[in-house]
């Protein structure tokens, strides 16, 4: 990832400033828990890294704290990171999946995204809205999760109530993070040619 001509520390500062949800980013290590726990790198407590002289260093809040800070956005520019420690959270059932809409629902979906970003206070939700075009078809989708497993919670009803949906393609159900991760994995494969185009 590159965010223009920014140094990694500056990039990290910008990525993590303010309310994460309002940062409105498609990048920065977003997880389905990010509204509550921040970027994924915020849960890292330590990196192990091999530096330019070949020595192994630990970088955490006490030891090599500047490196610890810089690696959260520093990619492969400071050495070869070999492992990392992360804080865990309790694993529980999650309600979520993908809802597909007919193309003409796009403006309504977009309005609801704005409302969600600006007004929603439920910290256990996460959404990704997409408008896609491929093979002659258009579709609008909303990937959404309630990470405490509440089925069709009030915070997501603004999306679940939009019609018409392409119901045979929708996958809203209760499952685990592993299962939801596998679901999204099935949408991409290696070796493609594309240009990322996130709307900010």
């Amino acid at each position: 990832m590159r965010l223009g001509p920014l140094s990694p520390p500056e990039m990290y500062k910008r990525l993590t400033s303010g309310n994460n949800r309002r940062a409105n980013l498609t990048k920065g290590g977003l997880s389905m828990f990010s509204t509550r726990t921040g970027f994924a790198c915020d849960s890292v407590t330590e990196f192990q890294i091999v530096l330019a002289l070949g020595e192994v260093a630990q970088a955490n809040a006490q030891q090599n704290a500047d490196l610890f800070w810089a690696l959260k956005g520093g990619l492969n520019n400071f050495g070869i990171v070999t492992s990392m420690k992360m804080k865990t959270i309790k694993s529980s059932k999650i309600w979520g999946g993908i809802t597909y809409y007919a193309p003409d629902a796009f403006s309504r979906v977009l309005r609801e995204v704005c409302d969600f970003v600006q007004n929603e206070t439920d910290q256990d939700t996460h959404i990704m809205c997409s408008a896609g075009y491929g093979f002659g078809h258009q579709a609008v989708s909303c990937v959404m999760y309630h990470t405490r497993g509440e089925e069709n919670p009030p915070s997501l009803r603004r999306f679940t109530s939009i019609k018409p949906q392409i119901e045979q393609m929708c996958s809203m159900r209760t499952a685990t993070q592993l299962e939801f991760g596998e679901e999204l994995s099935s949408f991409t494969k290696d070796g493609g040619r594309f240009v990322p185009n996130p709307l900010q």
Partner: protein
Amino acid sequence: MGDSGKAKVLSDLTEVLGDGLILPGSEKYKQANGSYFSAFENGLKPWCIAQPGDVAQVQSLVKTIRPHILSGICHVAIRGSGHTPFAGSANIDNGVTIDTRRLKGITLNEDKSIVEIGVGETWTAVYTQLEKHGVTVPGGRVGRIGVSGFILGGEFRCAAWAIISA
């Protein structure tokens, strides 16, 4: 970057890595160099792909290649799962690509509050292991992505789609 310089780099690295040094023309090279998320990365052709199997080998690799980098003979790229899409982000023409995907390991501490993850793991592997113990981590939404680039840099999941994320 003369051929003699390149030959010296390759022979020095072979000494350190043995079978962990992958050379052009082999099936392993074709497989490893063709396993990036974007075709722009697959299109680059490094002199060799170095696959250290543990931290000690990473250290030896760095110590061995350092003088060659300082003398201007070669450059290196470092890759994890290879998901960052632009050419040169984790692969290199006429240089050495250090492939960290063999650095595995998912280890929970005793009270299950902290997990140590090798950079060669994917989120699918991490969630599979952790869910057996009733915990997880706030990692990637897409399971097939590697942990290293996601944590150290960020995440793309865009393909032909324009995405709004909140």
